[in-house]
């Protein structure tokens, strides 16, 4: 039943590596900054870890590289809203009409991270990364609930952006700099990208070691 096309496309079966722990001193050249300065990076790293923390299930967003992922995304098309309609005039709209601001994602992050720092200083007289985890949660909750009054951006809008980009950093293909060693996928028993599931589609739950796009090149 499987045609010639399939035979051609299917990579040769090989035993998938059991997610080997990289050597301690192995360099990951992807882990440097394209957009954030070091302070912005540290705030982002602390915030994503509270959104998706390390626990008994496995690593949190920090170890998975979500902050590097966000940095890299903001440096490109997405950060510039390159494929969004950004023409004036800008009016305040109804909630049903969606985002109507003139600021682009990289500007929203720039302002949002600074405001997280300001709020932490005002409330706890400390930088956000130095706060206790419960205090960090309280800061993020204040943004989520718009308890922080900002004139430039929507506090909850920024929080939602931070949350969604954290999940993207945890679960996107490792090629983007997050989901380190596919550990995000492993935690939820997601097999990443396989070429075919014909052999298990009719069966009960099956754990399949994940593959990334690199396996298909």
């Amino acid at each position, binding site marked *: 039943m499987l045609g010639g096309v399939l035979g051609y496309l299917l990579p040769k079966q090989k035993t998938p590596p059991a997610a080997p722990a990289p050597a301690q001193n192995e360099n990951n050249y992807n882990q440097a900054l394209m957009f954030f300065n070091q302070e912005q990076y540290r705030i982002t790293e602390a915030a994503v870890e509270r959104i998706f923390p390390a626990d008994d299930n496995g690593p949190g967003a920090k170890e998975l590289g979500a902050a590097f992922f966000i940095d890299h995304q903001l440096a490109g098309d997405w950060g510039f809203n390159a494929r969004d309609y950004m023409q004036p005039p800008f009016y305040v709209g109804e909630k049903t009409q969606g985002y109507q601001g003139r600021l682009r994602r990289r500007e929203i992050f720039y302002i949002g991270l600074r405001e997280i720092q300001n709020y932490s200083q005002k409330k706890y007289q400390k930088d956000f990364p130095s706060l206790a985890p419960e205090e960090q949660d309280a800061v993020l909750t204040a943004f989520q609930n718009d308890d922080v009054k900002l004139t430039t951006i929507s506090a909850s809008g920024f929080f939602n952006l931070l949350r969604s980009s*954290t999940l993207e950093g945890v679960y996107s293909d490792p090629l983007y700099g997050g989901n380190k060693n596919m550990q995000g996928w492993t935690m939820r*028993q997601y097999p990443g990208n396989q070429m075919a*599931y014909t052999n298990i589609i009719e069966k009960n739950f099956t754990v399949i070691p994940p593959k990334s796009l690199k396996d298909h090149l």
Partner: protein
Amino acid sequence: MAKKLPKTDVVIIGVGWAGGIIASELTKKGLSVVGLERGKERVTEDYYMAHDELRYALRYDLMQDLSKETITFRSTEKIRALPMRQYGSFLLGEGLGGAGVHWNGQTFRFLPYDFKIRSMTEERYGKDKIPPEMTIQDWGITYDQLEPYFDKFEKTTGISGEENPLAGKRSNPYPTPPMLHTPSMKMFADAAKNLKLNPYTVPSANLSESYTNPDGISRAACQYCGYCERFGCEYGAKADPVVTVIPVAKKTGKFEIRTHSYVRRILHKGGKATGVMYTDLTTGEEIEQPADIVVSTGYVFNNTRLMLLSKIGKPYDSSSGTGVIGKNYAYQVIKGNAAGFFEDKFNLFAGAGSLGMGLDDFNGDNFDHSDLKFIHGGNIAHTITGQRPIQNNPVPEESPRWGKEFKANSLKYANSVLSVGSQGSSMPFRHHYLDLDPTYKDAFGDPLIRITFDFEEQDRQLARYLSDRCAEIVQEMGGQNIMKLKELGPYEITTYQSTHNTGGVIMGENPGNSAVNNYLQMWDMENLFVVGASAFPHNSGYNPTGTVGALAYRTAEGILEYSKKGGLLV
């Protein structure tokens, strides 16, 4: 001064399903056809790296670039329409194959009821059943008249399916057997039967087995990889114009495709189309392509916008209810769903765009509406389309949406939440329509299309009713902690719902209530055909592509006849 090219028999605007079907049918009969596609060329090899949720599902790699052109939206005439600056409620296709590249492949036929909706509703329930503002109408064609064309589209695409006891009569069985059944699809079927309902396997363009169609095109079977909607198929298993109709047209030597060619006006003189004016996006040059026959196949928004920009037909005026272009914009009521938590885990990472079990006991007029405050209904289905991890993190309603507890719950339930959804039909209303926005422009300075639309009491009642039915099925399947729709709320443009927008250049029995006849030929301009879901006077409780495909085949037949005889075909 635009560069003027030599005349062709037919020029087609947009090369997706409708454009591809018409090109293949006309070129087979010897007509010369030019296809103008504003996006880029596409081939199956483009999708070997397609299993990338971020790139395709979150960053919309295959979709129209909104920075150049979008739509504007307002819920009522009383407020200012604002641009859809980012994707949300629906996705716009672009490039060779159009949205036919990234569809799921669920291929239904609208019900016999749909085509005679006003007369059949009045006959069964009386005239008062239809609110005065609801502008439903008979389509000017019956299911039986359209049946041979449904059959043709299903054979071209190789639809995999089985008999649906509550659908219109079929002249032939589906070309290929139904898709494989997952354990949860069996649970849905058992639950539905226990509830005395009529489940069947969702008809699928994903191909249950390798198939050669009547045009001699062979395709491989679906591998259930879990990446269909928003993605291209790296196997060519999913029916897509690029792997079905376009190669047939190309082989004749009569079909010339020009990509990066953005049609901006249909040209006309003395009540007849003379060709089109387009911009070559690679050079910026304006080019005139004269043609004997013009076919616009831009689905809904582009078809309507081109008519308005080109000043063809009478624009709809909601205050008087006169005019037709832009009339009867409708959508899909998709939020009437339910989901439940299960003890077992399932292979929810696997799947296919049209893998699922459905039922039509609550669709069309298959159930008694005498005591209900709505008409029509929707298809109910449990589909297994691949639960990709960024977009699918179901947690119990009371669970937080971030932090320790969220993480634990989202991992725990990643493979054990099953949902049953509905595709509610969408009725047109006098004050829902498309026109040109007075403020916002595209990259060329032409006005954007403006949507005026909101959910009505009809939709709220229908969504809640369908959600309750879905919840009963989930419960019968053994689901716990069932989540269902509480209230539909207003229509908003930020959450993805469905790309099944319809209307704007609608079909009907006469020029008084419609823009095109049942060959999708413009009443006001006999050598212009406008093909797409733009022709639907309302939207049914199904995916639209099967019906668009059937109408495209009928249009092709009409164009061939017109090319010989001329004149209005109806």
